[in-house]
């Protein structure tokens, strides 16, 4: 730790920021799009077709992207330490001294996230035009997709915890809505529910961590001896707890140290300033606090990380993500690969100044990340559902990101987030294209040989595979290598209060194993899908006649079934024009709506695979090119002798000082070589076992190790474990509580209700009969009896006055009874 103290010698100042007034437009556009499609989508779709729907949604995304680019351009024009755009709209809440603003902030980190979200988001919206063309509730899909982008932008752009939490819950909701998009299918609806429920566990941790952080900082805001020049200032004089009615008043009341407001805050920038500038004493105060024998900072870090575990699908809360593949594929690409699931990583990186204070919390983050990376990769080995493979791969890659932010290589974790967003989006959209091409078939055993039918999809998928496997020609290598190298050189991690310098090396070892596995299962999916012969069509071709429009299709399918590779090839030549027609039908999005019944897939009818429309292939190509080009953001310092572009860009944000051991350059070269070797080993094995689907070794091996295979194939029975330990007891408890509710509580409630009603009735009766009766009597007497009953009338009024007067006198008495 001396090391750290030495490094942190230079003092950090408060964040300098630039006030702007247009940032709120970035999330506003998708919100408007979502609102239009949600409220009027059905009517618009009926009146003008699907074109209007996706025009609105895509236009919203493009406008959002353009605004984000404008912000980026403005940011580039500012000096590096001044790149912080702040846009405070209005005060949402002032309670006591805490103020919550509807405020948006962009620093280098959130700028990067916003660009990823809007850029990849726009591409995926475009992709969805072709992919979702056949879905009837088209408007619902685009409304929710836009709403998701809005929530995600709130999450990354909100300048305080409240806004972030709003976005955090918002993306959870949209995720739920989109996973359960086909809600008529009970299994898919259940998958949505599962995602929602599992995320609740995570959110509970997140919220608990937040509250604990706030509680822990509370002490720093009240009187202490060592603050404010060493003199003890009594509590009332500090105005630390006095309420404020407006935000401005709250700011005015807070003590200021070195230009930094020290007071209750939920704002990230203010929080960072208070913690980073040591003179405020907040950091010291936080480090000194203990709770239940743990340092408070470790508890806060671990609890916040539990939130990240839920959202970013880490062990043991990852179970929802594979099931989430029930949603449409663009959703899987956007939400469950590129953006939402990385929210946890983003959160840890955003709070790096906090996590860096607790080596224990960081060690847990890294450890869980490592376990997840290895565990999920191994499940990926034997999955047959192409989307499931990608899902487990995502879980595994998220693990890598957490290794990065856990060991303190924040920029590397964030860089992997970026590279992963590109190559995983490519993979998912590629798989979507494959699924569409194979007529909604997701089982890789029924694919094969698709590279002939779907050239663009094939090439883009291959590029993304190379990227994820970690070959230096694409971006994945650079981020993964940096993460593993930093993991190996990290020495400061602490577990259970013990310093564990060996943990870094252990993480490296596990990481390289996971990287080998990654390469293996990704190339396995590639070979199973794209090489060999097309294995689909069995059992499809027969009834393909009935409902399939293209006559060539069953012929080709029949040939493929028969295994006449050569002849099949010729026939495909004939079949091609027919498929080109399909292509045209999709390629002009304007016509997509009119082609609802053109039988492109025969839906489940079968036939040969075909390349997807241009809205899909262009998106794939763009993303694949992006997967390559983004490598230039992370060229290692070893090669260029200057820090990687992204590291340099993010430096002002990710300022937490974490010590790393310095090793000779030769080591770094060797480790890069090892990374490539891992990728190669995985690739070679995959090629050997799965290329062209010829090898029988996989089947033999499977037979030989039937037991182990079954366990892994069934995902280590984790779902069953959850079922036995969590779900069934919960259901039992729920049943019991339901019984309790039905028999005991209801009775109590009814009893209480009965009593309340009696009282209310008595009250009502008093009002009706006594008061009204009296007054009615007075009125009746006055009007009907007239002069003759003057005496009675006087008497009655006296009686009646008692009501008001007795009450008044009771109040007088009350004045003497109290105190």
């Amino acid at each position, binding site marked *: 730790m001396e090391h750290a103290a030495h490094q942190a010698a230079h003092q950090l100042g408060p964040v300098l920021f630039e006030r702007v007034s247009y940032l709120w437009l970035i999330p506003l556009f998708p919100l408007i799009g979502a609102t239009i499609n949600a409220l009027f989508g059905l009517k618009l779709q009926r009146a003008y077709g699907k074109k209007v729907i996706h025009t609105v949604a895509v236009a919203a995304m493009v406008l959002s992207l353009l605004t984000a680019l404008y912000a980026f351009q403005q940011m580039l024009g500012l000096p590096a330490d001044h790149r912080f755009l702040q846009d405070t709209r209005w005060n949402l809440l002032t309670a006591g001294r805490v103020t919550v603003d509807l405020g948006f902030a962009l620093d280098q980190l959130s700028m990067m996230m916003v660009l990823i979200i809007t850029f990849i988001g726009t591409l995926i919206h475009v992709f969805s035009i072709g992919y979702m063309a056949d879905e009837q509730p088209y408007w619902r899909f685009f409304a929710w997709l836009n709403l998701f982008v809005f929530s995600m932008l709130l999450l990354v752009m909100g300048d305080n915890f409240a806004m972030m939490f709003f976005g955090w819950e918002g993306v959870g909701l949209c995720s739920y809505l989109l996973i359960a998009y086909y809600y008529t299918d009970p299994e898919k609806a259940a998958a949505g529910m599962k995602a929602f429920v599992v995320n609740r566990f995570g959110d509970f941790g997140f919220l608990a961590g937040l509250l604990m952080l706030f509680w822990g900082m509370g002490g720093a805001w009240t009187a202490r001896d060592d603050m404010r020049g060493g003199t003890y200032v009594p509590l009332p004089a500090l105005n630390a707890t006095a309420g404020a009615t407006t935000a401005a008043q709250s700011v005015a009341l807070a003590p200021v140290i070195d230009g930094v407001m020290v007071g209750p805050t939920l704002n990230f920038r203010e929080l960072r300033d208070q913690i980073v500038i040591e003179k405020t004493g907040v950091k010291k105060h936080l480090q000194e606090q203990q709770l239940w024998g743990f340092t408070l900072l470790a508890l806060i870090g671990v609890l916040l990380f539990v939130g990240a575990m839920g959202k970013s699908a880490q062990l043991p809360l990852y179970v929802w993500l594979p099931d989430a593949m029930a949603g449409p594929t663009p959703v899987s690409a956007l939400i469950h690969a590129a953006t939402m699931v990385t929210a946890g990583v983003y959160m840890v990186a955003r709070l790096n100044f906090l996590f860096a204070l607790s080596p224990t919390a960081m060690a847990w983050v890294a450890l869980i990340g490592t376990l997840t990376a290895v565990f999920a990769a191994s499940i990926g080995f034997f999955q047959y559902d192409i989307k499931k493979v990608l899902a487990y791969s995502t879980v595994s890659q998220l693990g890598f990101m957490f290794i990065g932010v856990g060991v303190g290589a924040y920029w590397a974790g964030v860089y992997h987030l970026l590279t992963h967003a590109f190559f995983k989006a490519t993979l998912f959209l590629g798989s979507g294209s494959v699924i569409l091409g194979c007529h909604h078939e997701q089982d890789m055993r029924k694919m094969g040989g698709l590279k002939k039918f779907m050239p663009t999809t094939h090439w883009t998928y291959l590029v993304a595979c190379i990227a994820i496997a970690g070959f230096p020609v694409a971006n994945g290598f650079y981020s993964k290598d940096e993460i593993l190298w930093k993991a190996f050189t990290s020495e400061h991690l602490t577990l259970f209060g013990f310093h564990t310098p060996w943990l870094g090396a252990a993480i490296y070892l596990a990481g390289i194993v996971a990287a080998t596995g990654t390469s293996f299962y990704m190339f396995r999916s590639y070979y199973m899908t794209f090489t060999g012969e097309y294995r689909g069509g069995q059992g499809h071709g027969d009834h393909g006649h009935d409902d399939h429009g293209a006559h060539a299709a069953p012929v080709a399918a029949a040939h493929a079934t028969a295994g006449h590779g050569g002849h099949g090839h010729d026939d495909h030549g004939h079949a091609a024009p027919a498929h080109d027609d399909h292509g045209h039908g999709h390629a002009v999005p304007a016509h997509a709506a009119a082609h609802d019944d053109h039988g492109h897939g025969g839906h489940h009818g079968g036939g040969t695979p075909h390349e997807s429309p241009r809205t899909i292939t262009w998106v794939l190509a763009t993303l694949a090119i992006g997967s390559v080009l983004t490598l230039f953001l992370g060229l290692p310092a070893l090669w260029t002798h200057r820090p990687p572009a992204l590291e340099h860009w993010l430096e002002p944000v990710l300022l937490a000082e974490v010590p790393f051991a310095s090793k000779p350059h030769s080591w770094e070269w060797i480790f890069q070589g090892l990374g490539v070797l891992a990728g190669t080993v995985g690739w070679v094995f995959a090629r050997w076992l799965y290329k062209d689907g010829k090898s029988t070794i996989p089947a033999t091996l499977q037979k030989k190790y039937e037991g182990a295979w079954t366990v892994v194939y069934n995902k280590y029975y984790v779902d069953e474990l959850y079922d036995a330990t969590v779900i069934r007891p919960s259901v039992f408890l729920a049943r019991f509580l339901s019984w309790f509710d039905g028999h005991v509580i209801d009775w109590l409630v009814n009893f209480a209700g009965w009593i309340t009603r009696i009282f209310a009735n008595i*009250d009502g009766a008093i009002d009706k009969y006594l008061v009204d009766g009296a007054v009615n009597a007075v009125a009746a007497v006055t009007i009907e009896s007239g002069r003759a009953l003057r005496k009675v009338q006087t008497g009655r009024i006296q009686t009646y006055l008692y009501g008001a007067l007795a009450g008044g006198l009771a109040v007088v008495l009350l004045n003497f009874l109290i105190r």
Partner: protein
Amino acid sequence: MDPKNLQVLVDVNLKSVAWFYPELWLIFGSMGVFILDLVWRKNRGRVRLLAGATLIVLACSGAALAMQPADAVSLFNGMIATDSFANFWKWLFLAAAALTVVISSGSQEFAPERIGEFFALLLAITLGMFLMASATNLLMIYMAIELVSMVSYVLVGYRRADRKAHEAALKYVIYGGVASGVMLFGMSYLYGLLGTANVTEFAVKLAALSQGFAGAAPGAAAATKLALVLATVFVSAGIGYKVAAVPWHMWCPDVYEGAPTPFTAFLSVGPKAAGFALAIRFFFGAFAGKMGATGLADSVAGIPWPAVVGVISAVTMTLGNLVAVVQTNLKRLLAYSSIAHAGYMLMGLAAVSATGMQSVMIYSAIYLVMNLGAFLVVILVAQSTGSESIFEYRGLARRHPVAAVAFAIFLFSLTGLPPFAGFMGKMYLFYALFERIGIPGGGWYATLALIGALNTAVSLYYYARIIRAMFLDPPYEKAAPVEASPGGQLLLGAFSAFILVFGVWWNPIVNWSARSLQIFRG
């Protein structure tokens, strides 16, 4: 009297007129509307013309209010004061009056031949409320309350042929008369004890009086205190009857039921708000010390009035809510609900702090909109079905979705659920109590807050009952179709938009009320 002194008094009066233009507009405007009523006797479009004229008068009064110098000054030799506090309320009253004019011009409860007098008298009530918000002299307080009450008696009995209206008006007169008498009696005691009728001088005189307790014989001190408390409570009886707080609430349901519905709506927001304005000025100005930097103040002369107000608040909201539970007539239900809301607002009064004061102001502003909105739906439904029974609301969501959704918004807001403006209003009321809980001797505020919270839950029951009827219950087979004029729908939309917008963006109201906390204290 010395002629020289007399000259000074006259001068002061003449100078005061500069701050009195809004009220002058109302006075002459009211007379003008009476004359126009006669001029346009045969005119077919007289309802629109008269409504337009009334709105112009209100607008002119508002313009005069906006142009008024902002400084706090005492006018007419200490009779009234104008300050930012009074101006806040005056804006509310103008808004309430203007909205009532709009609502009633579309209502069938007013015959076109007689609507002119309604508008003219409404302006007179508005004048009375203006004076209530700024009166600083006991006599002026009495005059202002009487002005509001007298005109109210007339307007409650507006429907000449309706026996219910007669009954309501008569009850109102009796209650009002008793309350005024009691208040006047209390005022005479106060004047006798303190030697002044000027409320702004009370705090000083009370301090002197309580100093005198120490030296006096034990019996004399106790007698003086008893007289003081008695007098104060009697004066509060007059105010309490205006805001319909228990035990001076009994007139409320009958009067609300008997009065023409637009006027009921006005009664539930206008005079009630004026009562709170007066209560704050009377109690905070005369019976509380100055607020410190913390915004908290204490009662003077050892009278535990904050606690007493707290008890009244608790009893008022509990009774209002409990009785509302068994109501089936919507007008009566809203009457009891308005009693309950008076109870909630009394919480802010009991807090005796800047926040407390602010919270009452915020809540009054929001209550104005949500309650007028609720009454507007009742008016629309009653015009189509001829009844105010809850059974007429069955299946309203299908019969008239706009009205049903708007009503649901108003009811949720009245309950105090987010994201509706009512939530934010209640939040500030409760927050005023929470601020007090930590202060020594403030433990009972926690109890009050708990009672308030429980009451909110009870209120959800009867509000939700209406919502259930509208959205879940099927309509009766022979249910009359509900129709609403485009203007009425527009108004509903505007009210709903207000509730929704200020449910998330409440800065303007909060800032405005924070700027309006300045009370003239002499």
